[in-house]
């Protein structure tokens, strides 16, 4: 069964450094998402992406964050200058279409630790 994959599984970085989290969505999916989960807190929506544009973003997704689909398979989340509070598990997801009832398929996550 096709799966969403994410790399790296763990990333440790220093405060102020840039990080890029990578995701390979399911191949025939057209809609891509990033969510994050701070330890002990809820899974929170960050951004959705379709046709090389952001469809929707939350207030968490400020100017420090950006997303890109650099080629036909990868979908990336960049954090420009990491802060301690960016430490979290980051999940990528994808779906075939984007009507509200469509299932989103999640990757295993990247655990980011900012020191």
């Amino acid at each position, binding site marked *: 069964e096709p*799966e*969403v994959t*994410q790399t790296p599984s763990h990333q440790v970085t220093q405060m102020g450094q840039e990080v890029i989290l990578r995701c390979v969505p399911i191949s025939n999916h057209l*809609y891509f*998402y990033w*969510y994050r989960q701070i330890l002990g*807190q*809820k*899974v*929170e*929506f960050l951004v*959705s992406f379709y046709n090389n544009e952001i*469809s*929707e973003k*939350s207030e968490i997704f400020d100017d420090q964050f950006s997303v890109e689909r650099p080629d036909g398979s990868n979908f990336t989340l960049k954090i420009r200058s990491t802060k301690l509070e960016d430490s979290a598990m980051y*999940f990528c*997801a994808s*779906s075939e279409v*984007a*009507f*509200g*009832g*469509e*299932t*989103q*398929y*999640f*990757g*295993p*996550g990247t655990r980011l630790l900012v020191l």
Partner: protein
Amino acid sequence: AQSVAQPEDQVNVAEGNPLTVKCTYSVSGNPYLFWYVQYPNRGLQVLLKYITGDNLVKGSYGFEAEFNKSQTSFHLKKPSALVSDSALYFCAVSPLNNAGNMLTFGGGTRLMVKP
């Protein structure tokens, strides 16, 4: 704004006994509702979803959930728990008119099934 509440951080049940994991939601209009499960070191996997129609939804691994509009609830149930059901369970909602397909998650409930 929509929200999801899972009132129990943990549910303990003996193998073979029925289990219920509770979820209530708040959303404008009709919702799309999901249950996701997370096993250690794995991504979120969808168990079942409610879009429309029959209020009782059947999903993977023998799980089912009942949509109750008057009580704004979507409790997850299974008639006979297995030790392998032990995992973290998340309820999520997507509003009917959500063009970006943003999911809002509850805080999660850890299910522990003891032999």
